[in-house]
């Protein structure tokens, strides 16, 4: 099934490709790591710290850690942030790089099979095929909910 209309953002984290609908994206931005306030970090909730954003403070969740991607990926001196729509307000993730924004018609959305993955930890119900590559489809609301249930 081809994805519905609209645009999709592709990003990389730890060598893995991800995609999300731009309708669930508030902003792509860069910020110096020094702006990350870790005084209220909450590892169990996946919150690495908080970032000032448009006059408020939003949580930064560590997607790499959530997925068991090792190393310091996405947490260099400059943070490449995706600010996402959340249930109670914006939240963000840090990524290695944004590849671009593309027409949703170029993606084929499919259900992710359960067999390959550790089921109780797996947070992606769909993946997209883009230029022959499987990209993990990020639904920020679903991901946020699973984080809270963890």
């Amino acid at each position, binding site marked *: 099934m081809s994805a519905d209309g609209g645009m999709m953002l592709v990003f990389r984290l*730890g*060598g*893995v*490709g991800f995609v999300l609908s731009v309708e669930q994206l508030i902003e792509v931005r860069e910020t110096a790591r020094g702006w990350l306030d870790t005084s209220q970090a909450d590892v169990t909730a996946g919150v690495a710290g908080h970032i000032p954003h448009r006059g408020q403070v939003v949580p930064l969740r560590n997607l790499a*850690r*959530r*997925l*068991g*991607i090792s190393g310091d990926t996405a947490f260099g001196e400059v943070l490449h942030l995706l600010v996402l729509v959340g249930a109670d307000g914006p939240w963000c993730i840090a990524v290695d790089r944004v590849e671009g924004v593309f027409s949703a018609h170029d993606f*084929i959305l*499919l259900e*992710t*099979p359960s*067999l*390959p*993955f*550790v*089921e109780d*930890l*797996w947070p992606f119900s769909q*993946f997209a*095929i883009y230029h*022959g*590559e*499987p990209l*993990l489809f990020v639904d920020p609301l679903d991901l946020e909910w699973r984080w809270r249930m963890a």
Partner: protein
Amino acid sequence: MRLALFVAAERNFAVSIERIVHIIARPTTYRLPLLKRCFSAVFLDGQEMIPLLELQFGTAVGSASGLVIVCDSDFGKVGIPAERVLRVVDQSSGDLDDCVEEPMFYAETDLCFNYAGKRYPLLNVDAALCRFRTAPGNSPD
């Protein structure tokens, strides 16, 4: 029952041909996060995402040449890496006995097929996937 005989990581093994969907040239593989321990990566076969069975040792996975045997299992399709197909034979052309060889995949090989003076551990994909179905893989710390 007919058996297909293969080589991977310089070791022989056998798979029941009834389980084989097809054999493809080595596809591009993707090391996605949170894979179960018995899998090394996934690949696309058409629009299907299929896990690739991990070798316990050896270097067949990721080698430039080689094949992937796409098999049906009770849990879904799974890919098995191989370097080459040796032949397809009828089980009656050899005999089966208990397998004492160290498993080459994260998979069960209870039986061994003896054929033309060589031993071929018979891969039981269902048992392998049942065994590892709930085992944590590279889970986050």
